[in-house]
């Protein structure tokens, strides 16, 4: 048994850079006879251009459609046969692909990734594109359009970020843009971003680092390096002077109030203090917002606060659903009141200590799986530049003080920086019928 997540949380790893620029990170833990192989590309929806939103995510779907020697359906099939699972996700800053397999089959995902990186273009046809375009459009319908409040996040991003800001459009993409994406768009995106120099490969689990490096070299070391990407300067933090506010209708029964603020990016000291603030505000029944809005004030059915770990800037959000008969303005004002209290009077050391413990509880839970550890290391390598930089983030929590929490609240969560979106109930009607279908 390993205890690498010790009382001070550690995810020790070793990094080696292959000749073609691929960074390989190895983290050994022999708690279970499994290995996660995780490939992350510094390519997300922020790398799309207006008019072609959704491209990064559509390419993720296409990347599961097979490659020359592992044709359609092969990817899932061959992994399931060895008791493995796989998935991929696309977000604002990155796209990732990961497979978890029993130790005996660790070469299987590497071979599949080799084929995808080396022999993908021959299978990328118009037919494949059309099919996955349909799947993605259904994903958009299922996850966003056909779900109550499902369109709120998209609108919130549009309000918080100026039009040209790469975080202003949704990762899933706009329907009209999805329709426009061409085969050439997909090929170009793949050729630009899916290169060894723009990727990190992480092994986490029951495998020795030397063996991991050997396998990485064997399967991916001879792939051509590809073009080197130029680093784009980060756009300035959007400030929404004076604040912005909008109401939108949806087929829902209760109003919901969203507030968002642009804050510094993942891993910075202020981001860490804001994470503690997010827990202090809404995690646990004793937290400030739960107490003021749900338990004492009885204005909201639920209230949550969250912080995106994004690179160009973070996004601090607060979202609550009004109880019946409660006007959303009352809820909105109560949230503002809680934030103003924190800014004016600060918080107690006991609140901060409890919040840090709850952060730690969640980190420990998340990092119990090799998939999460691999993802965390890959993200640190991608966004912070070094997998080991994760320890700066993990250790940073212990140093957060009540004064820090008050300072970041005052600096970033003032009313004139807020984007507010209020979802207002629209109308709906239902009826039913029964037919003989046999």
């Amino acid at each position, binding site marked *: 048994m390993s205890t690498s997540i010790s009382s001070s949380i550690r995810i020790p790893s070793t990094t080696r850079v292959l000749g073609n620029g691929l960074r390989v990170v190895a983290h050994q833990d022999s708690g279970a*006879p499994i290995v996660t192989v995780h490939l992350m590309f510094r390519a997300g929806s922020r790398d799309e251009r207006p008019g072609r939103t959704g491209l990064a995510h559509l390419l993720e779907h296409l990347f599961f459609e097979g490659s*020359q020697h*592992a044709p359609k359906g092969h990817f899932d099939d061959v992994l399931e046969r060895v008791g493995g699972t796989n998935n991929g996700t696309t977000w604002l800053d990155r796209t990732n692909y990961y497979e978890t397999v029993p130790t005996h089959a660790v070469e299987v995902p590497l071979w599949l990734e080799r084929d995808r990186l080396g*022999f993908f273009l021959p299978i990328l046809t118009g037919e494949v594109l059309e099919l996955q375009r349909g799947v993605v459009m259904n994903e958009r319908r299922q996850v966003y359009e056909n779900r*109550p409040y499902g369109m709120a996040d998209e609108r919130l991003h549009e309000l918080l970020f100026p039009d040209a800001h790469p975080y202003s459009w949704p990762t899933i993409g706009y329907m009209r843009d999805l329709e426009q994406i061409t085969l050439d768009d997909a090929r170009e995106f793949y050729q630009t971003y899916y290169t060894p120099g723009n990727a990190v490969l992480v092994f986490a689990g029951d495998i020795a680092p030397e063996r991991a490096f050997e396998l990485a070299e064997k399967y991916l070391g001879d792939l051509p390096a590809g073009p080197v990407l130029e680093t784009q300067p980060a756009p300035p933090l959007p400030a929404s002077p004076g604040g912005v506010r909008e109401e939108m209708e949806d087929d829902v029964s209760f109003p919901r109030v969203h507030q968002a603020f642009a804050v510094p990016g993942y891993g910075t000291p202020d981001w860490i203090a804001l994470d503690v603030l997010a827990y202090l505000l809404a995690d646990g029944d004793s937290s400030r917002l739960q107490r003021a809005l749900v338990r004492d004030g009885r204005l909201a059915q639920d209230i949550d606060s969250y912080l995106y770990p994004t690179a160009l800037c973070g996004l601090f959000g607060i979202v609550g659903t009004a*109880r019946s008969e409660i006007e959303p303005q009352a809820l909105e004002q109560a949230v503002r009141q809680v934030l103003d209290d924190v800014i004016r009077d600060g918080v107690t050391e006991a609140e901060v200590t*409890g919040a840090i413990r709850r952060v730690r509880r969640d980190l*420990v839970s998340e990092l119990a799986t090799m998939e999460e550890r691999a993802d965390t290391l890959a993200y640190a390598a991608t966004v912070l530049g070094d997998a080991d930089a994760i320890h700066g983030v993990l250790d940073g929590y212990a140093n957060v003080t009540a004064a820090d929490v008050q300072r970041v609240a005052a600096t970033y969560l003032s009313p004139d920086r807020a984007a507010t979106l209020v979802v207002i109930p629209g109308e709906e009607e239902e009826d039913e019928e*029964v037919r003989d279908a046999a």
Partner: protein
Amino acid sequence: MQPETIPFFPAPVPGQPPRPRVPRPERWTMDNGLHVVAAPRATVPQVVIRLALPAGSAGDPAEHPGTASLVGHLLTEGTTTYSADELAERLDGLGAAVSASVGHDYAEVEAVFLTETLAEGITLLADVLLRPSFPEREVERVRAESLDAIVGREDEPANVAEDRAALEVFGADHPYGLPAFGTAAGIAGVPREVLADFHERFYRPTGAFLVASGDFDTAELKRLLDEAFGAWSGAPPAITYPAGTELPPRAGKLVLVPWDDAAQSEIRIVGVGLDRRSPDWFAASVANYVLGGSTITGRLGANLREDKGWTYGARSSFQPGVVTGGWSAETAVDVGVTADALREMIGEMRRMTEGLVPDAEIRRAKDAMILSLPRLFETPSGVAGRFVTLEAYGLPDDYWETYADRVEAVTAEDVLRVAERFFAPERTVRVVVGGMAEEG
């Protein structure tokens, strides 16, 4: 990258799979009847405890559906030792997460503690379970929240489809036919005294069980549990379930719930399943894996998603229960292809009943089920969950140790036999929430 410049080499052949290391927990029964399963595992400094009692919605008073659920939610809302606010402060201060969930059969409290706060955590856990005080003020708040949640739930077509499907299979007189959280009328009308009485009668150690997994010392756990739960005693009333049926009342029918401006139709094809302890459970699991156990590679997903591009996913599953549960296949598709999707799903179900599934497909299902075992036991919460399953459904102690052999023993003939029993379309009801231009 240019494919012609990269050498191709053949796919690797995996070696011998690792022997699944299934933890062998220590089990004991306390003097008061509380059964304990302890599976220490020191990978992360965390302890996950799940305590389950046969106090689910099946025990609801007939006139107050939702009682069991409300009682569960009120456990952490104040005890005879601490007010609701004091309790919240103590738990949050420990960095603990304690939450209750109430299903049809069991009420369950899950506690996640950092190892260094285990002793104080168990004391609070016992307080929550044994001594809730149901303060008037918190009862009214949670009642109002629950009523709002029921209204909000109906905003989502998937929930409407889910609830309707259960009702179609089991009917309103069976606990599995109603949502475990009850009905608005039941929750609105249940007096505080009924809640306290339900707790008094049902929250008893006999028939309850506690599963612990994570970084702890078993002897120490035993001492802490004796201290915290030793004085607890008694047995809950037995819950009687209505006799099972083989067929839903509307078998063969289509129930259409129109939804204006739906972006998709939510489709459920549902029927009666089988007893969790049935020897056929393994054959049924293999058969289901082939049909829709995996959302992309199952026959349903391969057809509707990968071949047609009509949906983001399609899957099917047997639902376990203390008595016979259900079976369901589900997807969400473009409104315009609703009838076609239904036809394809029925076709795939029918095909399972018309002949033996090829050996290669059966092999794939078995490998996926058996070789994924190590992953199921990766984390403390994973380990706890696997052993909760054994205790909840009365499965043998060696269930996980013999799981691979039992899956391996399933034959193609077994798969056909269970497919005929559960996947024959005329034995199921179709529920569609959305729109459908023409009939399938």
